[in-house]
C-alpha cells in the first residue's frame, strides 16, 4: 500500500495545519440547511481537502456518496446518482452528504449538461452537497452563487514536518531531524507530494537523498517549459528555459521522461535523435569542462525536440523523471558499495574496480546464513554493507551473528564468574601466587 493510502489521516488529531477550515466545514454541516447552499471547498492540490471530508465522515459517522472524475458527469448521471441521493433522506439518524470531487473539471463532451444538472440538484437537494475544486475560477458563476466557500491554503512547512514525523515513526524510517525539515520544505506546501517523496527515499534517508529531490516550486516552472516544447513547433521555446533554475542534465531528464508520453509514436524517434545529440554535447562538456557546449545541448533538447512534433500530441500528466530519481536514490548506496568494494579489495589484492568481480560469487556464498556469517566476518562488513552484498539473507545472517555473540558473551561471563569464585577461594590461602598471576595476565595483554 502506498504511504498516502496507508497513512491517510483517520481522525481529527492526525490532520495538521488546517484547523480553521476544518472547523468551518463542521459548523456548516451542523447548521445545514440554514441557507440551502452547497459548500465549495477549494485550494491547491495535496493540502488535505479530500482528506478533511473523509475524516469528518469517519468521526461524525457521515454517510458519504462520492462522484469523482473517473465517473462521467453528464446531466444524466448527475441527476440520477446525485439526484437520487439528494432526494432520499437518510433512513436512520446518520447524516448523509454528497461529495463531488474535482468540480472544476466538469466539462468536455462526456460531461455535457453536467453543470446545469448540478445547479438544479443543489437547489432541490434534501442533503448537503460538497464540491471540491483546485481552481474556483474555472467554475461558472451560476454554481458559485449557490455555494458557501471555504479555502484551504498551502500548508506551512512545519505542519508538513509534524505529519511526516508521525509517519516516519509509524513506518520505522531512519531520518534525522534536519533532513526531515529539509524534506518538508521541498514540497511547497503540498502534503501529498511530501509523503510521496518520503516514500520514494527508502528506509534510511540521508541528506544527499533529499538533495536529489526536485524542488516542487521549480517543478511548476519546468512544467511550463515542457508545455512550451511540446506544444510549439520551433526553436522559440528555448527561451522559456533561460529562467528555469535547473542544470541542463536535469532538464534533459524531464524532457526524456515526458516526451514519449506526450508525442505521437511516429514523432518519438525524431525527437530522440535530437535528445541523444544534446546528451552527446552534455557528455563533452563534462569530459572537457568546456561549458560553451551547453548552448548547443540546450538548443537541441528544446528546439530540436520541438521541431519533431508533426502529429497531434496526447494529453498526459507530466511525470518527474523516475529513472534518474532512482539513480539519485542509489547515490548513498553507491557510496556504500564503494566502501564494501574497498573491503573486498583489501582482502583480495584488488582495486575497487576489480573487486566488483567478487560480488556475484559472494551473493551465492550468502544463500546459507551460516555461510554468510563467514562472509561478513572474513571481509569485516558492517550491517549496511552486508545488506548490499547479501541483500536476500542479510537479516538472517545478522541475527545469527547476534545470537553467536550473545552466546560468547554468556560464556565469557560464566568464565569470569568462575574465575572470580576460584580466586576468592584461593585468596586467603596463597595471596602471593594470585598477584603473580595477575602480573602474568597483564604482561600477556601487553
Amino acid at each position, binding site marked *: 500500500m502506498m504511504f498516502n493510502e496507508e497513512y491517510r489521516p483517520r481522525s481529527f488529531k492526525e490532520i495538521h495545519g488546517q484547523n480553521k477550515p476544518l472547523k468551518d466545514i463542521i459548523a456548516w454541516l451542523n447548521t445545514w440547511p440554514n441557507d440551502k447552499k452547497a459548500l465549495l471547498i477549494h485550494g491547491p492540490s495535496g493540502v488535505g481537502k479530500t482528506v478533511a471530508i473523509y475524516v469528518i465522515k469517519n468521526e461524525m459517522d457521515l454517510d458519504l456518496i462520492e462522484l469523482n472524475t473517473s465517473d462521467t458527469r453528464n446531466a444524466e448521471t448527475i441527476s440520477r446518482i446525485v439526484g437520487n441521493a439528494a432526494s432520499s433522506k437518510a433512513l436512520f439518524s446518520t447524516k448523509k452528504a454528497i461529495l463531488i470531487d474535482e468540480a472544476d473539471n466538469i466539462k468536455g463532451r462526456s460531461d455535457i449538461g453536467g453543470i446545469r444538472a448540478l445547479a438544479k440538484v443543489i437547489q432541490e437537494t434534501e442533503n448537503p452537497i460538497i464540491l471540491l475544486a483546485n481552481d474556483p475560477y474555472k467554475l461558472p458563476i451560476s454554481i458559485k452563487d449557490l455555494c458557501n466557500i471555504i479555502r484551504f491554503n498551502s500548508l506551512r512547512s512545519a505542519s508538513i514536518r509534524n505529519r511526516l514525523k508521525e509517519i516516519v515513526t509509524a513506518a520505522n524510517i531512519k531520518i534525522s531531524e534536519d533532513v526531515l525539515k529539509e524534506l518538508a520544505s521541498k514540497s511547497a506546501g503540498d502534503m501529498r507530494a511530501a509523503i510521496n517523496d518520503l516514500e520514494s527515499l527508502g528506509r534510511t534517508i540521508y541528506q544527499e537523498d533529499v538533495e536529489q529531490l526536485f524542488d516542487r516550486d521549480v517543478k511548476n516552472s519546468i512544467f511550463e517549459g515542457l508545455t512550451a516544447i511540446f506544444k510549439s513547433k520551433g526553436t522559440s521555446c528555448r527561451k522559456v528555459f533561460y529562467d528555469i533554475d535547473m542544470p541542463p*542534465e536535469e532538464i*534533459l531528464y524531464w524532457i*526524456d521522461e515526458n516526451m*514519449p*508520453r506526450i508525442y505521437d*509514436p*511516429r514523432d*518519438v*524517434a*525524431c*525527437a*530522440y*535523435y535530437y*535528445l*541523444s545529440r544534446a*546528451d*552527446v554535447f*552534455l*557528455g*563533452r562538456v*563534462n*569530459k572537457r569542462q568546456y561549458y560553451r557546449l551547453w548552448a548547443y545541448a540546450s538548443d537541441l533538447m528544446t528546439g530540436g525536440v520541438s521541431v519533431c512534433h508533426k502529429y497531434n500530441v496526447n494529453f498526459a500528466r507530466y511525470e518527474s523523471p523516475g*529513472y*534518474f530519481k*532512482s*539513480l539519485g536514490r542509489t547515490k548513498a548506496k553507491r557510496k556504500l558499495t564503494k566502501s564494501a568494494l*574497498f573491503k573486498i*579489495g583489501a*582482502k*583480495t*589484492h*584488488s*582495486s*575497487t*574496480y*576489480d573487486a566488483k*568481480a*567478487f560480488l*556475484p*560469487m*559472494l*551473493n*551465492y*556464498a*550468502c*544463500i*546459507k546464513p*551460516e*555461510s*554468510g556469517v*563467514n*562472509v561478513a566476518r*572474513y571481509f569485516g562488513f558492517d550491517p549496511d554493507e552486508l545488506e548490499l552484498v547479501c541483500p536476500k539473507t542479510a537479516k538472517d545472517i545478522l541475527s545469527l551473528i547476534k545470537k553467536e555473540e550473545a552466546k560468547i558473551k554468556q560464556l565469557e561471563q560464566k568464565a569470569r564468574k568462575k574465575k572470580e569464585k576460584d580466586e576468592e577461594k584461593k585468596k586467603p590461602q596463597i595471596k602471593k601466587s594470585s598477584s603473580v598471576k595477575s602480573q602474568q595476565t597483564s604482561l600477556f595483554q601487553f
Partner: protein
Amino acid sequence: MNFEKPWTEKYRPQTLDEVVGRPYIIERLRSYVERKNMPHLLFAGPSGVGKTTCALALAREMYGESWHQNFQETNASDERGINVVRERIKDFARTMALGGNFKIIFLDESDALTSDAQNALRRTMEIYTSTCRFILSCNYSSKIIAPIQSRCAVFRFGPLAEDAIEEKLRRIEESEGITITQDGIEAIKYIAEGDMRKAENILQAAAFLGKEINHELVYQVSSRARPEEIEDMIQAAITGNFMAARKLLDSLLIDKGLSGEDIITQTHKQIISLDIPEDIKVDFIDKIGEHEFRLVEGANERIQLEALLARISKTQR
C-alpha cells in the same frame, strides 16, 4: 558448502613455480630472484591474468619470511590523488630494507594516474631509486608516459590460455572434493575469456549450489542478461511499443545492474540473428555502433539506448 575465503586467495600461487601459463615471464622473474636485484618493472595486461600474483610471488621469493616488511601494495585508482600516493611511498621508502638492498612498491592500476601525476611519480621513482624498486601494473602500457616506460622492464600479460585455466580449475576441483564436468569446464573457460579471477569466482559461486558443476550451473551463476530479456526489449521496440521497450530497458539497467555497454553489445548480437530485411539490419548495426561510441565518450547510457530503441521502432513501422 560454507564460505571460508575467496578461492582466488586460497589458491593464489605462493611461489613463482605455482604460477600457470606464464613460462617466459616466470623465467625472467626468477633470474631477478637469483641475482637478488631487479630493475623497475611494468606489468601490462587486462584484469585477472596474474599481474598482482606475480608481483606477490616475486616478493615472497626475494625476501622469504620478511617479505611483508619489504613490500608495499598501493592502488593508484583508489587513493585520492598523487599526493597521497607520494606520501605513502615516501614513508615506506624512508626506512631500510630488511634482508635485502631495496624494497618493492607495487602500484596497481597505475594507468589511472593522469600524465601530470605520472610525471610526479617519475620524480619519486628517481629520488628513491637506491632504496626502492617499483612494480607498476596497468591495463594498457600505452597509457603510461614514455619516460616511465623507458625506466622499466616491460612485461606483457595477455589473457591466460584456456589450458592454463583448465589446469588451475582441475587443481581446485581435486582439493575441494567437487566434480566439474567437461562441459562445465568449457563453459567457464568461454565466459572467463582468459581471466582467472573470473573463472575461479564462477567456479566457487557454482560450488555453493551443487557438488557437481556442469555448464547449466555455470550459466546460472555468471551474471549475464539472458538473451531472451534483450530479445523481449527489441521485440517491444519493433512492434512499435516504445514505452514497453523502455520499461524493459530500465529493468535491465536498474534491477539487473547491467551497464549500457553490456546491453548494447548484446543488442548487437541479437539484431544479427533477427528476421528483418538485410539493409535495415545493416543500418541498425551502424546506429548501434554510433551509440556505443557515444557511451565511451561519456554520454548518458539511458538516453542513448532510448534513442536506439526509438530508432528501431520507427524503421519497422
